[in-house]
Structures are given as C-alpha cells and as structure tokens.
C-alpha cells in the first residue's frame, strides 16, 4: 500500500482530509464509549464500597445488633449473615442454569438444523417474546399458578428418589421452594441462551458440516462433530450471561420463595434458603441506616461473585476456543 502512495502524486484531496478526520473522530468516540463502561463499573464498585463500609469496618457490636435485628437472631456476624445468602444465590442460579442449559441448546439446534424455515422463524420470534416478559409477571405466574400446580411432580420425584439428600421429603405444599424458583428462573434465562446459541449455530462452517455428512455421519453425529465444538465457547459465554441474570434476579424469587437462612440443599423443602437480591428487596423498607449499609454490603458480595463467575467463564471459553 505504501508503494501506491509514493507512486501517486502527493496532493491530498478534501475527501481524503474529511476521511481522515472522520476516522480520528470515530476512533476517539469508540475509545470514549469503552472508557465510559469501565468508568461506570468503577463507579458502581466505589459506590458499593463506600456505602457498605460502615457495615464492614464499623463498630462490631452495633453491626451485630443490626444483623440480629434483621434476622430475628438467626445470625450475629456479617459473614454469618451473608454466607447462607450467598449459598442460596449460587444454589438457585445453578439449578436454573442446569434446567435451562440443555433445553436451550436443544431449542437452538432445533431452530438452526431441524426446523423448517417458517417454523424456525416463528419459534425465534416466540423465544424473543419470552425474553421481553417482565420479571414481576414471571413472579406472579410462578407464585399463583406454578406453586400449587407443581406439587404432584415434586412429590413423585421425592417418592422415587427421596434417598438422595437433595430430593429428600417431605415436599412442601404449597411448593414455595428452591426447586420451583429454579424452574421459573430457568424459563426466564432460557431465551438469552437460546437466541445467542442459535445465532452461533447458524454460523457453523457449512463446509465442515457437509464434509461430515459426506463421510457418512448421521445428522446428530454431524452436529456433534462440526457444530457443537465450533459453538461451544459462544454457548458458554451465553450461559454466563444468563447466569448473571439469574444471580441478580429479585422479583421472581421474592414472590415465590419462602425464605430461610441455612446451608441446605434440600430442594423440595421450604424455608431453607434465600438469595441476596431478594433479601435486599425484602428487608430494605424496614431497615435503618446501618441496616441499609449491611444490605449494600451483601450487594457488594454479590457483585464480586458475579465478577468471579464471569472470570471463570472467560477462562473456560479461552481454553475451549484455543
């Protein structure tokens, strides 16, 4: 390219000038946008840190009193309070991701490889519509419809698999439990995974797919050989995005779950766990200043955990993509 410029006369036209100016301006704007995001993230972190500081570094006795007040005596120290909350958050999110992940990949593969074009278009539209439903509506539906309706299903599973601790009975009736919340959250995060995975699977290299088929692979084998390895890193980052939504989900959990403060994995029993976000929403109206600081500190813990989960996801995708 440099040869071309040295060979040509060195008279720059006005269009080239404006072209260069536009290029510089756009580069600056793009950089500013990137910096803006970093600045926002930093601002959130600083806000959380500053407002949470009285709860983390303040008078220990006052903090213990406030936490005992918030929990009715269930916890005395900050980590005694946030530990079960964190466990509950991770448990609920993990369950919902487990439900949603395989179903979403199935839907995405169906849309990209199995469905006729019309059906694929309609299905994509419906999945996008699911993503637009507000969390409150999901919470209402879960709380009013799903909770009484799903009891027979849980009772059946507990009858057969009750010897495994996570399925231990007695099944709570109405089922305002982690299992039910997991289902509702799974429905909420499924559109995210599905739409991103579908786009990724549609971009899988056609040549490799046809080569696999030409070599005698069945459709499933072709997908396993050519599509899934290609899309795996993208699917994992889609799942991490969905997991981020599940970790922070407030209204659905608040309206469905019967809260408790323990490290329990009994999915079918009520009053075992609570999530950080739902706890903040539930306790905030009645909390005094130090109580609000404690709640913001739990929010800070959630923020850090989400960060950590995303970092782990990035390292996985780097390994898989490499």
């Amino acid at each position: 390219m440099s040869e071309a410029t040295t060979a040509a006369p060195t008279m720059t036209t006005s269009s080239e000038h404006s072209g260069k100016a536009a290029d510089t301006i756009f580069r600056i704007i793009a950089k500013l946008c990137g910096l803006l995001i970093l600045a926002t993230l930093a601002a959130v972190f600083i806000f959380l840190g500053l407002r949470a500081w009285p709860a983390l570094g303040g008078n220990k006795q006052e903090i213990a009193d406030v936490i005992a007040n918030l929990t009715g005596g269930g916890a005395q120290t900050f980590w005694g309070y946030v530990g079960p909350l964190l466990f509950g958050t991770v448990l609920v999110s993990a369950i919902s991701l487990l439900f949603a992940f395989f179903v979403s990949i199935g839907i995405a593969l169906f849309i990209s490889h199995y469905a006729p074009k019309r059906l694929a278009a309609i299905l994509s539209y419906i999945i996008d519509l699911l993503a637009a439903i507000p969390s409150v509506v999901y919470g209402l539906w879960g709380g009013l419809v799903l909770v009484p309706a799903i009891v027979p299903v849980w009772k059946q599973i507990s009858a057969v698999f009750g010897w495994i601790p996570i399925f231990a009975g007695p099944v709570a009736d109405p089922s305002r439990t982690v299992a039910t919340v997991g289902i509702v959250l799974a429905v909420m995060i499924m559109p995210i995974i599905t739409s991103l995975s579908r786009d990724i699977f549609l971009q899988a290299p056609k040549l490799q797919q046809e080569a696999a088929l030409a070599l005698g692979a069945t459709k499933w084998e072709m997908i396993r050989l050519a599509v899934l390895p290609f899309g795996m890193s993208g699917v994992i980052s889609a799942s991490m995005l969905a997991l981020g939504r599940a970790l922070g989900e407030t209204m659905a959990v608040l309206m469905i779950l019967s809260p408790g403060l323990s490290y329990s994995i009994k999915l079918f029993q009520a009053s075992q766990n609570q999530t950080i976000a739902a706890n903040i929403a539930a306790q905030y109206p009645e909390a005094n200043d130090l109580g609000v600081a404690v709640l913001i500190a739990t929010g800070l813990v959630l923020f850090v955990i989400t960060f950590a989960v995303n970092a782990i996801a990035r390292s996985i995708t780097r390994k898989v993509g490499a």
Partner: protein
Amino acid sequence: MRVFRLLNLKHNQHAGFFMQMMNKHSKYSVPANTVANTLNAVHTANIVNTADTASPVNTANPANTAKVTSATNTPKVVNTPSKTVSNASSNVPRVKRFIAALCIIGVLPALSACGDNFPTAQDLRSQAQGAGLTQQDLAPHTDLSGEFSGAGASSQQAVMESWIAGFQASNTDIAIGYDPSGSGAGVNTFLMGASAWAGSDAVLSDEQLAQSSSVCAVGQAFDVPVMISPIAVIVNLPGVVGQDQHIVMDANTLANVFNGTITRWNDRRLQALNPQFNLPDLPVTVVHRSDKSGTTLNFVSYLKDAAAGQWQYDLSENWPNNVGQGAKGTSGVVATVQQAAGTIGYADYSQIGKLATVALSVNSSQPPVAVSVEGATKALEDSHIDQKRSQNNRVIVQVNHTTDKPGAYPIVLVSYAIACTQYSNASTTQFMRVWLDYITSERGQALASRNAGTAPLPHNLRERVAQSVQAIEAPAAPASSAVPDLPDSPNNQSASKL
C-alpha cells in the same frame, strides 16, 4: 421484525391485487403501472374514505399503508377531497407534518393539567359520598388549612383512608396524606420531622422517645392507640368451610402447632378438641410472616402470655423459628394459606376473605370464641394501661391475653399514632389536635369499623385517650364548627344513626 418484513414482501407482490380492490371502491381511477402510484393512490383513498363512512378498503389496507408509507399515523381529519392524485404525493407529507404538530401542541395543555391533583370542595364531598360516608361520619369543620402528612404502619392504611375522606370532606382546605411505608420507616420519618405523626404497631422505644425531644417543641412524643384489629388464625382444611365452621384450639395447642410440636392434623390433641370433625391425616404447614410485622409481635405476645410453657421464644417482630413457610405481607400469608390444604397461619381479620378460622377455647367452662370485631373490643375493655410507661400522655395498652370475659377474643393488634404535644409549627399543633380528636372519637372509630373491619376503641380506653389528646393545644374556635352538609343523595337520606 421478521413478520413485518414478510408482510412487506407480500405487499409488493400483491400490489396489483390491492389496486384492483381499490379501483372497485374509490372515486379515483389509478394508473396501473408503478407501485409508487399505487401506494399513493391507496393512501389518498384512505384519507378520502375517512371523510365518508368506513369502507372495506380501510379495513383491508391499514397495516400495509402504515408500514409502507412509513409516515406518522394518518390523523383523523377531513382532508380536502378535491386533492388530485398527481398532487397527493408531494403535498401529503407536509400537510401531515403540520397536522401532527397541531395535535402535539393541542395535547400539551391537557397533559400539563395532569400534575395538579388537588380536588375541589365539591369533588371531596362527592368522593366522600361515593365512599359511603354519611353526615354522621364527617369531622367537624375548622378554619385550618395546609398539607399534613403521616407515615407508618401498613396495617393502618385502610382506616387512614376512611378517616382522611371523612376529614377532608368537611375541611376542604386541608390535604392529608398517609404513607404506609411500615412502622419502622414511619417512626424514622416522624423523628426526622418530615411527617406530622407516625402510625406504628409498636410503641416508641426509650431511645426513640429520647430522640423525639429534638422534633417536638415541648417535651417528648406520646403514643395513643387509634386502631384495634383482631388477628384471625386462618386454616385451610377440607371439610372446614364457611364462616360458621371453626377448628377449636386452646392456647397451648396453638403454641404447639406454631412451634412445630404438632405436625399432623389428626394428632390426638387436636382431635380431642374437635370431636365434631374427622380431622384428615395431612401434614400441618405453618405459614408465618417473613418480614418484620406488628401482627407477628402481637400474635407471639399472645402465645407467650397465654401458653408460656410452650412458647419460649423472645418477643420480636420477626418470626422466631423455622417452622413452616414464610410469606411477605398479610396478603402473602392469606394467598399461601389459600393455595394448599393443611395450612394454618395468622393474619389481620379484615383481610382474610372467605378462609375458615380457629375458635379459641379460652376456658373449659365457656364455649370457644370465634374471631370477631366485638370480641376484640371486649378483650380491650378487660385490658389495662401500662402504668410504668404512662408519663407524658402516653397511653400504652397491655392487652389482657388471658381474659376470661365471655365473648372476648384475646388475639388483637393494637396500632398506635405517635405525635407531639406541641410542634414548632403552630398550625401543625392545631391540626394534630383536631385530627386526633376525630380519629379517636366515637364517630371516627365507628367509621373505621364500618369501612375497614376494625374494632372500635372501647369506652374506657377512649376516654383515657381523649385526655392525652386534649393536652394538645386546640385551635381557636371557629364561627361555626358544624359539620357541613353533604349534597342530597340516597346515602344521605337513608343515613342511620351511628
């Protein structure tokens, strides 16, 4: 969106079809060659046809014209039918823009009126009538004016709404607001001086009392009971339906159910108290409040007083154990109990709907007492005022949970109003005197009872409360303190003496 793109595609392919349809119905004949002409013609025909009665073309075309012309919605205006087709394509956009601008300008004044919500005197009186208030419910008229607000317990929301309607109907220059943000939040707001009074299910603690001297002009704040509400113990059991069927329990059994000792409905202790039912073999699911609540505090204080052996937990607004499920708010508890058989919970009596309740067996010599408003009043008649905390006009009720007065229902929620004897602002002082006078008066309590299902303050308690309220300085007597008339209405004419 893909659906619309599909439609678009369809339109271009079927433009000819629409042209034919259009030719049949419109006054204009359109050239058959270009799509653009077709679209313009259809569009103009649309405008013309809105001036006439609705035509089939309109129903067939709207989606296509809306999408294809990509202009703002065609306003409903009688455009000049004399516009020719050839001019339509250049003039229509400008005309539409002008009309759109006119519409926006025309709508702005209408929108700006949205902010100002102050009702007129006539509005207030008709609102009061619409709410079923009669002449006897209204407060006396005063010459005060201004805006005053209170905040606090959500349990007082319904009664506050009735009282505000009754007060504002005869005092149209006063605007009163009540924010049901919760007892704790309301007391905080009051202690910061941001509200004239606080509604609270719990009385002021000692620190809050000390803090109140910074917000009251003279001395400290005081609490008076303004609302009494029975707390019903609700059950959902097959075979126990309707308002006349009750599960009978005594205090010890109730405590055993709520502390997790009794786990099945056909437990012999429950069956012994209920020979009239064949109790099913269902697990007992306790439903309690997951949030801090005055209802919880009053309920567990009943259990602690009446069944001290079975209830060892400390008193608190948080539910003390992990038995059963927690639900948020009174409505959450009621909804959860309704959702499954075998549930039992506690909630404010006025909000339980059609759920069956527990009748308390207070005493073996008396029949079990079902929850009722009169029963709550009787229990309060038999209760004492806390003498240790009665200085400075405070009236703190110690509900007699072990009352054996016949017909008394001992599980009650007493809710207080917290106010100062004197405020730094004279009009606030005068307002609070008149306001508290009204809400604790016989007519105010009767209104609340009728509208919100609460129990009226019993006579002896009301007198004691009146003494405290009268410590607040009254406004100078106005020329006429009669209750103004409501406009003539069927309500007014059939008003009965309260």
